[in-house]
């Protein structure tokens, strides 16, 4: 709980909801007749409507990227250390938008909301949406907010995939792209991890093929397990080791299957806490969206060909100990961009935190982000001045 709002915070924020009546055709072949997107904005849009930055969230993120909803919030938004006045994504210069993606459970239309056609909670009937579908829906939100071109679109992990898709699908609509700890497609190992996560949810007897809402229950064990597994893959061997080592709960082994090691307790807590804030169907759907993303497939695996249409400047960042989205995966994107002759810079940041590093305010990472967005801002000013002359 903040006793008072820090000077570099965006402060108290109020989410807004945009309703869309125009049907959205989805990759899976069906369409959503209508839907809501919940979003937050920080900073103010300039007169030219040119200073907007879109933040794309990752698997378990939502629209609440920065600031507080109330003075008694325990924590600020998920990327508060990068978004705010004077921070790398500087809200005194930029108008920052973050939305909860379709299929999410933060307030946008998804498995936990009511299907207006049936008046029932969507549950398992909610169609699987893809990164392409998300970008489509984000573009419609931009239309609604009167934003033709983003100064930048920024995202980490699954969020980075959305940024990449934006640069391919709407090259005219963004000036710069920041892709952090991401990949052009999942590795086999990543898909395998996702499958174990999904299986642990779907094999929970309380899952009921996804219709647990109707049965007034929740697949807590399955979702908790999925999160425990995911959590391990987001941390590095070293960071987990440094945090817990072999620290034990009791002085000696218990010779039973309760908690011996602190890391067990930590994982159980993480799993448990996650089930209180996240929906199992959304988790299933988000992992599928990750699995399906492969923009290069359209060009026989030639990513540089697909990226040839891109017009924005790119910044890519990876983290040395990230093994879920390793630096080599970011470098695949970098190599393709170089081959396609695009303006790209790349930083491989030394970090001990594994994949989670993208949420930490690491000085070098923050400096790269600041430098890149400073330049974005300067170019914006230059083109505004040019327009005025």
């Amino acid at each position, binding site marked *: 709980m903040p006793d008072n709002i820090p000077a570099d915070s965006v402060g108290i924020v109020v989410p807004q909801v945009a309703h869309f009546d125009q049907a959205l055709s989805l990759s899976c072949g069906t369409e959503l007749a209508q839907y809501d997107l919940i979003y937050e904005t920080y900073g103010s849009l300039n007169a030219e409507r040119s200073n907007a930055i879109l933040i794309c969230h990752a698997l378990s993120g939502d629209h609440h990227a920065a600031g507080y909803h109330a003075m008694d919030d325990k924590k600020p938004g998920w990327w508060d250390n990068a978004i705010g006045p004077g921070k790398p994504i500087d809200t005194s210069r930029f108008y920052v938008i973050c939305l909860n993606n379709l299929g999410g459970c933060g307030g946008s239309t998804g498995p936990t909301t009511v299907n207006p056609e049936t008046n029932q909670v969507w549950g398992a009937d909610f169609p699987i949406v893809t990164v392409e579908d998300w970008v489509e829906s984000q573009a419609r939100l931009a239309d609604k907010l009167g934003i033709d071109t983003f100064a930048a679109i920024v995202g980490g992990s699954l969020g980075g995939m959305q940024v990449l898709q934006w640069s391919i699908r709407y090259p005219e609509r963004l000036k710069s792209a920041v892709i952090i700890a991401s990949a052009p497609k999942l590795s086999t190992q990543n898909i395998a991890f996702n499958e174990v996560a999904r299986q642990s949810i779907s094999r929970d007897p309380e899952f009921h093929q996804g219709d647990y809402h109707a049965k007034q229950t929740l697949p807590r064990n399955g979702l908790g397990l999925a999160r425990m597994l995911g959590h391990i893959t987001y941390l590095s061997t070293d960071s987990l080791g440094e945090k817990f080592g072999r620290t034990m709960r009791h002085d000696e082994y218990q010779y039973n299957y309760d908690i011996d090691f602190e890391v067990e307790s930590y994982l159980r807590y993480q799993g448990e806490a996650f089930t209180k804030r996240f929906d199992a169907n959304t988790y299933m759907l988000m992992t599928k969206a990750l699995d399906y993303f492969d923009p290069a497939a359209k060009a026989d695996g030639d990513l540089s060909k697909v990226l040839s249409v891109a017009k924005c400047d790119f910044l890519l960042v990876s983290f040395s100990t990230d093994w879920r989205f390793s630096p080599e995966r970011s470098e695949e994107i970098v190599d393709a961009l170089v*081959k396609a002759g695009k*303006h*790209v*810079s*790349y*930083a491989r940041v030394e970090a001990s935190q594994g994949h989670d590093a993208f949420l930490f305010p690491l000085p070098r990472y923050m400096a*790269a982000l600041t*430098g*890149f967005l400073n*330049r974005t801002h300067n170019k914006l000013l230059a083109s505004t001045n040019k327009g005025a002359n």
Partner: protein
Amino acid sequence: MRADLDIINEWVQPKSRVLDLGCGEGELLSHIIGNKEVQGYGLEIDAAHINQCIENGVPVLEHDLDKGLDNFDNESFDLVVMTHALQQFRRPDLLLDEMLRVGKECIITFPNFGHWRNRIHLGLKGHMPVSEFLPYNWYDTPNIHFCTFKDFETLCQEKGIKILRSAAVDGQLRDRWWIKAMPNLFSETAIFHVSR
């Protein structure tokens, strides 16, 4: 701009695709991107330099050159440049091969160890040269493979590398007759433009 960079700037073809190995803060690249409309990328390993390039809008890729250039296709660049860095690598000869695989042409600059001041240092004083230009001690220098103007010519000959042109500069001086006549003795920096 440094005298060697000035010469490279003159040699670069407008609108070509250039890869600068060890680009530092991107001084050369930002110059030739602006003046010659080249499509340029720098490879760098120093975090502070990388951030400076990003801030300056010079495309820079974090890359450990000791691991080679495997990720770049054959002849994917018109020109590969390396200024004052060749002598810092474990196998300059292999790196040179790699540069000539990735680039159609290469420009390399390096400190000429045959410069008269170095000869005096070593020959008369009996110490490894330490100067404003080469400020390191033998034990902490990143320059592990010093060579002379002549040595490089020999290497090119042995490898069948064509020397398209060369130049020699002494501090900010260039094009002086004595440097041109005896580059191995009078050039502080050697500059070679080569191809296969």
